[in-house]
C-alpha cells in the first residue's frame, strides 16, 4: 500500500492540518489505520473512497466528534487531539446538513457567532446570507427551503465562523445531478475567495476531481494514493485507484526488462512498453493499465507505430453510441475484452461488431501495476452516482 505522506506540499504556512499516525478502532473493526497526513493551509483537499473506507471517521476525528484510538491531530503547532469539538477552530458541513429545524435561517447562520459572543453578529450574518444568496429567506425555517438552499445554509452556517479548517461531509450527496454540478463550481469559487482549508469527504470521484487540489484515495482505512487529480488519474499506483477514478483496462503482462527508460513487457506474445516512471512493479507478472480514451482503434494492419504500443488481433464485440463518444468493447485474441472510447469527431465511420481492429496507445499513457492486486478492486458499478 502506498505511504501517505504528502511530499509535494510545502509546510510552514503555519496552520496546516496534520494527522500523525491516527488510528480508530470500533471493536475489532479498524476504521482508520495508522493514517499520517498533512493538509496545507488554504488547500482544497478531498478524501475520496467507497463507503466504509474510513473517510468519514477521519473527518469526525478532525471535527472532534470521534476520539482517535491512537495518534495525534494538529492544526499548525497546536495539538487538538483531545480538544472538545466546541473548542476547535473547525466547522463542519454535515452530510444531512443538520440544520436546526426550530430556528430561522438567520438564527441558524448566526448560531456559531452568538455562541462565541461576537457583538456584530447581525451584520456578519447578513453579509454571509448575501454571499450565499439567501438574504430573502432569512426569516424562513429550514423545512421551507429546497435541498440546494438548505445546502447553502449549512455552508454559510459553518463558514461564518471563519474556521481554520472547514470539513465537508458528502455535502452535495443529497442534491440532484444538475444542482450538484452548480454547487461544485460554487464551492470551489468560495474556497478560492476566502482562502480557507477545505477538507472534503466524498465517494464521488468526479466531484473530488472537479474541486480538489489534492485527493487522497482511501480504502480499508488507509490512503492508497495521494496527489493532484490529474496525477492520480494518469498515473495510478494501485488497481484500486486505477478503477475507482475513471475506468481502466488492466491486462496481464510479464515484465521482460525493467532496466531502461522504458520497461519492456510481454503481453501474450506481443511486445509492449511502459515508461519507467509509470511502472510500479519491477519483475514477474504485472497489470498493464490503459484508460479507454487513450486507446486508438484502427482497422487491422493499417497502422504502424514505432513509438507506440500496438496490440493486434482484436475483434469488436460491442458498440455503444453515447453521443459525444462511441464506446467499443474489443475482444483480444486471449479472450479479454478491453474498453475503447472514441470521441465523436465525425472524421471517420465507426466500427461495427465483428470488425478486426488493432489497438494502439502512446507508451507514456500506460501504467504498470503489481499483479498481486485484485484487478477488480475499486470497480464502481455503473449506476452508482
Amino acid at each position, binding site marked *: 500500500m502506498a505511504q501517505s505522506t504528502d511530499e509535494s506540499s510545502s509546510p510552514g504556512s503555519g496552520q496546516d492540518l496534520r494527522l500523525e499516525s491516527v488510528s480508530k478502532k470500533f471493536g475489532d473493526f479498524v476504521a482508520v489505520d495508522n493514517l499520517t497526513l498533512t493538509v496545507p493551509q488554504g488547500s482544497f483537499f478531498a478524501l475520496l473512497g467507497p463507503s466504509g473506507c474510513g473517510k468519514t471517521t477521519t473527518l469526525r476525528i478532525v471535527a472532534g*466528534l470521534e476520539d482517535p484510538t491512537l495518534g495525534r491531530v494538529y492544526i499548525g503547532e497546536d495539538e487538538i487531539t483531545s480538544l472538545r469539538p466546541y473548542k476547535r477552530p473547525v466547522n463542519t458541513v454535515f452530510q444531512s446538513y443538520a440544520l436546526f429545524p426550530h430556528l430561522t435561517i438567520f438564527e441558524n447562520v448566526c448560531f456559531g457567532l452568538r455562541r462565541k459572543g461576537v457583538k456584530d453578529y447581525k451584520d456578519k450574518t447578513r453579509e454571509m446570507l448575501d454571499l450565499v444568496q439567501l438574504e430573502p429567506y432569512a426569516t424562513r425555517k429550514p423545512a421551507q427551503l429546497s435541498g440546494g438552499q438548505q445546502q447553502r445554509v449549512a455552508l454559510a452556517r459553518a463558514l461564518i465562523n471563519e474556521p481554520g479548517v472547514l470539513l465537508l461531509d458528502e455535502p452535495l450527496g443529497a442534491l440532484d445531478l444538475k444542482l450538484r454540478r452548480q454547487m461544485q463550481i*460554487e464551492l470551489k469559487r468560495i474556497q478560492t475567495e476566502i482562502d480557507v482549508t477545505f477538507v472534503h469527504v466524498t465517494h464521488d470521484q468526479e466531484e473530488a476531481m472537479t474541486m480538489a487540489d489534492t485527493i487522497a484515495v482511501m480504502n480499508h482505512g488507509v490512503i492508497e494514493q495521494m496527489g493532484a487529480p490529474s496525477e492520480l488519474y494518469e498515473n495510478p499506483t494501485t488497481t484500486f485507484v486505477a478503477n475507482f477514478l475513471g475506468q481502466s483496462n488492466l491486462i496481464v503482462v510479464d515484465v521482460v526488462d525493467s532496466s531502461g527508460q522504458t520497461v519492456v513487457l510481454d503481453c501474450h506474445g506481443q511486445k509492449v512498453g511502459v515508461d519507467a516512471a509509470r511502472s510500479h512493479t519491477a519483475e514477474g507478472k504485472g497489470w498493464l493499465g490503459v484508460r479507454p480514451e487513450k486507446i486508438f482503434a484502427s482497422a487491422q494492419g493499417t497502422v504502424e507505430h514505432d513509438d507506440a504500443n500496438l496490440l493486434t488481433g482484436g475483434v469488436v464485440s460491442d458498440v455503444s453510441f453515447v453521443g459525444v463518444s462511441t464506446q467499443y468493447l474489443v475482444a483480444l485474441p486471449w479472450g479479454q475484452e478491453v474498453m475503447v472510447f472514441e470521441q465523436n469527431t465525425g472524421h471517420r465511420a465507426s466500427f461495427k461488431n465483428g470488425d478486426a481492429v488493432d489497438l494502439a496507445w502512446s507508451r507514456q499513457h500506460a501504467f504498470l501495476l503489481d499483479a498481486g492486486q485484485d484487478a477488480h478492486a475499486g470497480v464502481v458499478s455503473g449506476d452508482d452516482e
Partner: protein
Amino acid sequence: MTQTTTSPPKASDDGEASKRRGWGWLLLVPGMLWLAIFFLFPTVQLFFTSLYDPSGSYEQGYALTWHVANYVDAIKDTWNLFGRSFMYAGISTFVCLLLGYPLAYAIAFKAGRWKNVMLVLVIAPFFTSFLLRTLSWRAILADQGPVTSFLQTIAILPDDGRLLATPVAVIAGLIYNFLPFMTLPLYASLDKVDYRLIEAAGDLYSSPFTGFRKVTFPLSLPGVVSGTLLTFIPACGDYINAELLGTPKQYMVGNRIQAAFLTEHNYPLAASLSIILMLIVVLMVIVYVRKSGTEKLV
C-alpha cells in the same frame, strides 16, 4: 446561482381526488359517535344539572330553574379548595418534569439496548391498580415507616414530625402516580431529536449545556407541553391521593365533588363545581398552549 423552488405535486385528476376525500370522513364516524354518546351528552347533562333548583333531592327529583346561584354557592365555599388543587397539581407537575426529563433523556440517548426494558419499567406501575399503589404509599409514609424514620434520623424531620396526612404526602402521591404520563411524551419527543443536531451544536461552539439549552430542549418542547398537560389536568381533578394520603385539611376540589355527588347527593352543587373546574382547566390549557406555541416558553 439560480434560485430553485419546489412546488408540491398537484393532484392531476381532481375527480379522483374528490372521490377519495368523499369517503375519508367515514373513518371519523366511530370515534365521533363514541364521543357524542359518552362525552358530549354527559357534559350537556352535567351543565343542565348544574342549573337545577338545589331544593330538590335525589329521591324527589330536580326542577330545571336555571339557578345560576349554584355557581356562586359552589365558589363561595370552595375557592380555597380550588387554590389548593391548582397548587398541588402545579407543584406535582413541576417536580414530575424535573424527575421525568432526565429519565426520558437517559432512555432516549444513553440507554442503548436497555431502552425497551427501561420503557417497560416506566409503565410497570400500571400493572397494579392505582388505588392499591396509593394505599401502599400509606405504608411507606407511615409514622413508623422507613421513610419517616430515616428522615427523622438525619434530622430533616423533627422527632414528632410526620409525612402521612401532610401536603407532602399528597403531592408525593400525585408525583408518583403521574410520573409515567410525564415521562412517556418526553421520551417520545426526545427520541425524535436527531443526534446529529446535537453534534452540529457542538461543532458550532456550544458546550454540552448550551447545546442542550439551545437545541435539545427547544426540540423537546412538544413533549414538555404534552407531558405537563397529561400530568396537570388529571392531577387537578384527583381526589384519591388527598383521600388516602391526606386529611380533610389537604382535600382538593375533587374530594368536594366526590362528596357532593356520592355522599351528599347534592347534584346541582357537584355539577357546578365540575363545570367550574373544567372551565378553569380549559382556560389554563389554552393560555399555556398558546404561549408555548409562540416559543415564549423557550
